[in-house]
C-alpha cells in the first residue's frame, strides 16, 4: 500500500517534460490525474524512480472546434468532457462515454490522455477513440507526430507511445450528415470498468444502407480493438435488425477473450455480441434521426 520512494519533477514546459523523460528513460513516468498510476505504484506493480508531473501544463487541457475536427488536450479531465456543451453538440459520443467512467471523484481527476496512455484493457476511452477514428498526437524531443487510433493500442497496457513521448491531443473528426454514434457499456461488477464496452459509429446513405461503420470494443480482449469483421458485415447492407444481429455476431471474432471470476471467456464473448448489437441499434437510430434533422 506504500509506493516505492521516487523523485518528483514539475516541468514548466512540454519540452522540459519530454526532455526529462528522455533523460530518465525506463526509470521515469509521466503523472497526469494519477488515478491509474498511483494505485499501480501503491500495489508496487509500478515503481518509477522519477515522476514527471504534467498537471502544471495547463494549456494541455482544452476542448476546441477547428474546422472539421474537435481537438481535445490530453490533460482534459473526464468531467470536463462529460459536461462540455460543445462536445454534446458536436461529438456527443465523447460525453456519453465520459459519463460511464468510474465515479465523480475519478472523473474529476482522471484525464483522457492518461487513460489512453495507460491503455487498461477495460478502459472506456479506447473504444470511443477507435470508433471515432481519432488521431492521437504526441510530442517528444524528436518532434510531434500523429497516430491513428487503430495503430495506437499495441498490446496489454502497451501503446505506440515511446517512453519520452507526451500524448498532447486527441483530434476527432466531426461526424457528418446521417451519422450516429453510441456507447453501450456493461460495468464490471467489481471494478466498474467495462466488462464490455462497445462504441459504434454508423453513417447511413440516403437509401438507408450502411455507408460506413466503425466499431471499437473494450473490456473483451487484452487491448481495445476495432471490430473490423462487424464493420465489413454491415458495409453496404440495409441497417435492418437482421443485418445488425448478423453483424454483431462477429464482435469477438479472432480475439483472445478475457476470463475472470465474473465472466468466463464464453460468456464475455456473448456479452460482446449483445452489447455490440445494442450499440449498433442505438447508433442506427441516431443516424436516422440525424438524417431527418
Amino acid at each position, binding site marked *: 500500500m506504500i509506493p516505492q520512494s521516487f523523485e518528483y519533477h514539475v516541468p514548466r514546459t512540454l519540452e522540459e517534460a519530454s526532455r526529462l523523460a528522455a533523460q530518465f528513460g525506463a526509470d521515469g513516468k509521466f503523472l497526469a490525474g494519477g488515478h491509474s498510476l498511483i494505485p499501480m505504484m501503491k500495489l508496487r506493480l509500478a515503481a518509477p524512480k522519477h515522476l514527471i508531473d504534467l498537471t502544471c501544463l495547463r494549456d494541455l487541457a482544452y476542448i476546441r472546434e477547428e474546422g472539421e475536427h474537435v481537438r481535445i488536450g490530453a490533460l482534459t479531465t473526464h468531467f470536463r468532457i462529460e459536461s462540455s456543451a460543445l462536445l454534446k453538440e458536436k461529438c456527443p459520443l465523447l460525453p456519453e462515454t465520459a459519463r460511464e467512467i468510474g465515479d465523480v471523484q475519478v472523473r474529476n481527476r482522471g484525464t483522457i490522455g492518461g487513460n489512453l496512455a495507460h491503455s487498461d484493457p477495460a478502459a472506456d476511452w479506447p473504444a470511443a477513440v477507435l470508433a471515432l477514428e481519432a488521431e492521437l498526437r504526441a510530442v517528444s524531443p524528436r518532434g510531434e507526430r500523429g497516430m491513428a487510433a487503430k495503430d495506437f493500442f499495441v498490446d496489454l497496457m502497451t501503446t505506440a507511445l515511446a517512453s519520452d513521448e507526451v500524448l498532447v491531443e486527441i483530434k476527432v473528426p466531426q461526424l457528418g450528415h446521417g451519422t450516429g454514434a453510441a456507447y453501450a457499456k*456493461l460495468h464490471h461488477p*467489481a*471494478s466498474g470498468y467495462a466488462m464490455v464496452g462497445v462504441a459504434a459509429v454508423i453513417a447511413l446513405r440516403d437509401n438507408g444502407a450502411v455507408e460506413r461503420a466503425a466499431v471499437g470494443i473494450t473490456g473483451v480482449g487484452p487491448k481495445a480493438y476495432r471490430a473490423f469483421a462487424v464493420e465489413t458485415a454491415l458495409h453496404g447492407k440495409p441497417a435492418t435488425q437482421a443485418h445488425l444481429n448478423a453483424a454483431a455476431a462477429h464482435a469477438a471474432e479472432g480475439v483472445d477473450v478475457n476470463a475472470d*471470476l*465474473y465472466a468466463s471467456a464464453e460468456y464475455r464473448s456473448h456479452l460482446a455480441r*449483445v452489447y455490440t448489437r445494442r450499440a449498433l441499434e442505438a447508433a442506427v437510430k441516431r443516424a436516422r434521426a440525424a438524417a431527418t434533422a
Partner: protein
Amino acid sequence: MGETTTQSSPIGARVPMVDAVDKVTGAGKYADDLTLPGMLVGKILHSPHAHARIRSMDTSAAERLPGVRAVVTGAETPVKYGILPVGHDETIFCVDKVRYIGDNVAAVAAESEAIAEHALRLIRVDYEVLPAYFDPEQSMQAETNLIHDDRPHNIEREYHHHFGNVEEGFAQADYIRQDRFDCPEVTHAALEPHSTLARYDAEDGTLTVWSSTQVPYYLKKTLAATLQMPEEKVRVIKPLVGGGFGGKSEVIPLELAAAVLARKAGAPVKITYTREEVFLANRGRPRQIVELKTGVTRQGKLTAVEARIIQDGGAYCGYGVVTILYSGQLLNAMYDIPNVKFDGYRVLTNKPACGAMRGHGTVNTRFAFEQQLNRIASVLGLDPVEIRRRNLLHPPCVTLNNLRVLSYGYPECIDRVVERSGWKEKYGKLPYGKGIGFAGSHYVSGAANPIIRSAMPQSTVNLSVDRQGGVTIFTGASEIGQGSDTVQVQVVAAELGLPLEQVRIVAADTARTPVDLGSYSSRVTFMAGNAAIAAARDAKRRMLQAVARAYGVAEEDLLMEGGRVLGRNGCPLSLTLAEAARLAAGPAGVLTARGSYNTPEESRGGTFKGAGVGPSPAYSYSAQAVEVTVDPETGRVTVDRIVVAHDCGKAINPMNVEGQVIGSVWMGLGQALQEVVDYENGRIKNAGLLEYRTASTLESPPVETILVESNDPEGPFGAKEAGEGSLAATIPALTHAIYDAVGVWIDTLPVTPERILRALQEKQQAEWKSPGTGARM
C-alpha cells in the same frame, strides 16, 4: 419479563447508538488506533504450501537483522487450542505441518513494518510438500496424507439424526422432490481488519491485550492456555470493533502471535492484518452441499424431510462441529415437519478454516429448504405463501428434536409481507423479465448451552449508582457495532426510570467487567439485556428498601419513576435518585448491584448426540418478498425492491433493529448474487475487497422493513434476536423471483448472470425438443 412502561420509556425509542458520536467524529478508538511507548510491529510468516511437512526452519538470519526484537516459531508454542473443547487442533504456529496456504509458520516483532517484512523473507523453511485436498467430496475419500492424523477420511465430525420415521413419512407423500444445492464459501468482509495490541509486564507477569474481538472472555482463556500463564494474569480489553459478523468470534492467530511476541520481545507489539491476511484467517461460511429430499401431500402438507449435508470446513475445526449441527438442527423450529432425517459431514480440506458467519450454519440449509418448498409449490400449483401457511408450527411447542418454541411471529411476518409487497397482484402476473419471490427464515436468540459447559451464568452485569445518582453499567458484553452497549443502557434506563444520559456503560474489559460469553449467536440483547434488567432491579430494590427503612414506610408504598423515588397509596414521599442512592449506599459508601442471566433448563434441548446445538430460549422469524428484473439476454439481475418482516419480539430500539435487518438482507443479497471466495489449488484468487465484491449501497434496492413484535415471554421487555435471522430468507426469495421472472431455478450460488443465461439456454433447448411443456413465459 415484560413490564408495562411509561410513555417516556426508552424502550421502543429510536435513539442513536451511545457510541455513535465518537465513531462519527473519529474520537473513538479501534484496536489499530492504539499505540504504546516503545511499541513494535508484528508480522506473521504464512505458509506458501497447502499441505506440507516442515522439515526444518532457520530463523538465525532474521534474528540477526538490526531492528528485529523477537522471532517466534511453533517449537516455542506447542499448546493446542480451538474455540470448541472438542476441536483443539490449532497451535499458534505450525509445529510439524502446514495445512493451508496462509497457515501460520512464524512471526517477527521489529521496530518497523519494513524491517519486520524484511525479516520474514530471511526465515528459511524447508518444506516437504504433501498431496493436498481441496474438494470436500474427494477429501472424504482420503486414506493417506490425512490433514489431521486423528481424523480418518478427513472427516472432522459426522452426525446422523433421525426423528420420527422418514420412510413412513415419504410413504404418505403424494409428491417427493429431491435436489442438490451447492453454496460456495463466502466470508464476512468486515470493514475493520483484525488488529491486536499486546503488552506483557515482566515485573508482575501480567499480559494485557487489546483486540478486535467478539469474544474477550474466550480470548482471555485461550491466551492463558497457549501462553501457559495463570488466567488471572491475563486481561483482555475490547476497543471499538468495526464489524465482526462472526469473523472475530473465535480466537484469531494474530491475537496469540502478538501476545507471544510481546512477551518474548519485552515490549508492546501490535499486529494488524492486511486485507489479504483477513481472507487467510477466514472463519467464513463454509461451502455447503445439500442433498435435500422433501415429501408433501397433495395439499402441500409436509410429511418428511431428509437432508444430507457436506460442509467444506477447511484445515481446522474452529466452530465446525457447531456449524454442521446448526445446519441440521435448524431444519426444525420453523415449520411443522413430522419426520426429519439429517446426515451431516464436516470435512477437512487444505484451505483456510471456516467458522461462524452471520446466520451460522443455517443460511445454506434454509436456502435449500425454502427453494425446494417453492419448487414443490410450483409443481403442485399451490401459492408459495399458502404452502407455508399450511405447515406452520403451533407454539408453545417442542419440536421433534427438542427445540422449545414459545413466541412465533412467523405467521404475522408472512401476512404483513404479503400485504405490503402486493404479492397477490404480482406473483405469476408480472411481465416476462420481472418477478417476485417469497421465503422465510429464522434464527436463535443465543445458544441455550454455552460453548464450555458450566454452571456459570451466560451473562452477568454489575451496576453502580454513584452518590449523585449517576448509574454505571459494567458488562462483559461486546459491542461490535450491533448496538450491544445501547441496548443495555436503554433497558437499565427504562427499569430505573432515568433519562439515557444518566446511564454510562463500561464494557468488555475482563479486568473490570463480569463475564459475558460474547457477541455470537445473536445472544446479547436477550442474555446481557436480561442480566442488565436483573441488575437494575437489584439496584432498585436496594434503594426502595433503604428509603423504606429510613422513613419507616412500607416498601410497597414506594415506586421509582422519572428519576425519583415516590410514595404512593397516600405516602407523600419524594426523593431524588441521588438521595435514595446515598441511603442505599449506607456505611458501604457506594451502591452496587448485580444481575445475571442463564437460560432456563427447559430451553436447553435434548440429550442425543449433538442435541446441545440448536436450542435457544427464543427464535426470531423473518419473511421476505424480493422483486427483480432479469435481462434475459445477458442474465443480469437488478433487484428492485425487498419487503422484509422480522419478528424481533420487541424492538427495544426500532432504528437499530431496522439497521440490523437491512444489513442482514444486504449480506444475503451479496451471497445470492455475487460473493464467493474463489480458490485455485487452495490459493484464494480474490483476497481483497475490490475482487471480493460485497453488496454496497450502490446496488441496494429499497429495503422496506416491517418489525413484528411477538413479545417473547422470556425476552428482555419481550425482545429476541434481530441481527442475523433475516439474512437467510433473502437468498431463496431472490432465486424464487428469478424463477418468476424468467422461469429458471438456480440451485448453485451465487446466481451469476452467466448461470442464469446458461439455465435459460438449456431451458430453451429443452423446450425446442418438447414444445409446449415449458413454464409460463
